[in-house]
């Protein structure tokens, strides 16, 4: 474990060095993701200037869910962004060979190879929005609220990473699976707003098929006392662990199916 932590830091160091030589890129990427979050908040603000509540949710509650949705997403974005590259070109161009010839677990190498600073923009915006909304609501209700919140963010990271890993692993069979990831990420946009504005069938899909509802809505509702903690947080953790297990199975059989590109 200590060895992997040390290795990860070495990878990180290399990543940060290359960032230093592209300082403008770094700032532009950070600005892009913060701008997106800021405009999302502005959207909610413009809408709530015209209506008192959204399907029973106040402006503060909607922003709490919205901000909370960015936390797990931002963390996942920082640490597992290389999965997008896997889905895009690593298999198709045979670049994955490089990883297989080194004496470290392939998944560790893949994730450690890329640290995406753009995710910091999402995370900072998420923290800012949540921190603005929380004191205006019943959060925190007690010291355990923070523990529950941390558990919920962990569950959210697990779900994002699992969906990404499973879909990116499809590239081992079909070479290019970025379009699948793109579609799944669009589905994740549903999770930023209260689920009760959607029809039942869609809610079912978002809860049990692509479980993005557990990345923000259910846990946030539990933290605000609108859902039971057992379902909102416990359920999110259970779904997160199950999804992670499944995605690791897909990844493993994908590794066995991998054939390098000929040239």
């Amino acid at each position, binding site marked *: 474990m200590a060895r992997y932590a040390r290795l990860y830091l070495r990878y990180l160091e290399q990543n940060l060095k290359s960032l230093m030589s*592209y300082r403008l890129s770094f700032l532009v*990427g950070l600005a892009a993701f913060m701008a997106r979050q800021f405009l999302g908040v502005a959207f909610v603000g413009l809408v709530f200037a015209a209506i008192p509540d959204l399907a029973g949710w106040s402006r503060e509650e909607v922003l709490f869910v919205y901000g909370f949705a960015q936390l797990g997403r931002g963390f996942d974005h920082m640490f597992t962004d290389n999965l997008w590259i896997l889905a895009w070109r690593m298999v198709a161009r045979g670049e994955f060979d490089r990883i297989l010839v080194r004496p470290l677990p392939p998944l560790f190498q893949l994730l450690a190879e890329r640290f995406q600073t753009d995710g910091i923009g999402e995370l900072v915006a998420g923290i800012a929005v949540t921190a603005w909304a929380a004191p205006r609501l019943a959060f925190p209700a007690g010291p355990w609220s923070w523990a529950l919140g941390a558990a919920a963010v962990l569950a959210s990271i697990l779900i994002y990473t699992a969906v990404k890993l499973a879909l990116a692993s499809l590239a081992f069979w079909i070479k290019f699976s970025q379009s699948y990831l793109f579609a799944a990420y669009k589905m994740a946009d549903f999770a930023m707003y209260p689920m009760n504005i959607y029809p039942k069938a869609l809610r079912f899909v978002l809860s049990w098929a692509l479980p993005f509802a557990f990345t923000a809505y259910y846990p946030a509702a539990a933290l605000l006392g609108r859902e039971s903690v057992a379902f909102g947080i416990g359920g999110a953790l259970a779904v997160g662990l199950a999804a992670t297990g499944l995605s690791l199975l897909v990844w493993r059989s994908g590794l066995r199916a991998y054939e390098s590109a000929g040239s």
Partner: protein
Amino acid sequence: MSAGRYLRFTRNTVQTLLAYRANVLFYIFGNIVQTLVLWYLWRAIFAGAGGGRINGFTLGEMAAYLLAAVATQSAISGSADGIVADEIMDGNIAVNLARPLDYRTRVFFGHFGECLYNAVVVSLPALVIALAAGASVGSTGSRLAAFAVSLALSFTLHFFYKFMLGLTAILTTNVWGVFNVEAVVSGFLSGALVPLAFFPDWARGAMALLPFASMVSVPALAFAGKLSGAELARALAVQGFWVIALALFSSWAWNSLVKRVSVNGG
């Protein structure tokens, strides 16, 4: 100039896109999802307002506005910026400058191919599904005509705008970041998510000085029947102004920047 020579670039682009049908299906799906999120959100917003008007919009008008906004966005969504930026970065622009074809015209026809493809393959299914999900749209012949004219103007000014955006690759290497910021900002200021009537007065004053409203808001308002005769004439005139202004500005930018292109040998 014979259009036939350039039309080949359009045909080429469409054929390339058709070759990747399976992937395109998922992009289409992503687009439909995005439309649905907006639609359910607005339906809940109107239910919250007691079913009345919000900032002058009824739910039916809002549905018409959003559908027209989605259709407009995909019909103008060519990537002239990406074409230009890629060629600047990989150096192919040198070869293309040497060819006996006008560079901007050639890019235009490739861009046009993408727009055609996106309008038909991407936006039609999204529209059909939104209609099936309960969005009702009533539109008359004259509104459709106004929409068509406004869409054509929007398409033209948007091309010049995108072409100029691609030229930023000469100035910076992080084009991906620049495009990302641009997409987010223009998506918001063009009225694609929220009609501009929802913005506070000071913001609307500022936006009147920018070309973004002419890209999506005007055709969508025309389709939804939210512009009276005089308002429509004025909005179309503003669009016409931006077509000319951006055409001139992009020619200027092209002429002054192309001299700075330096291509790595190899």
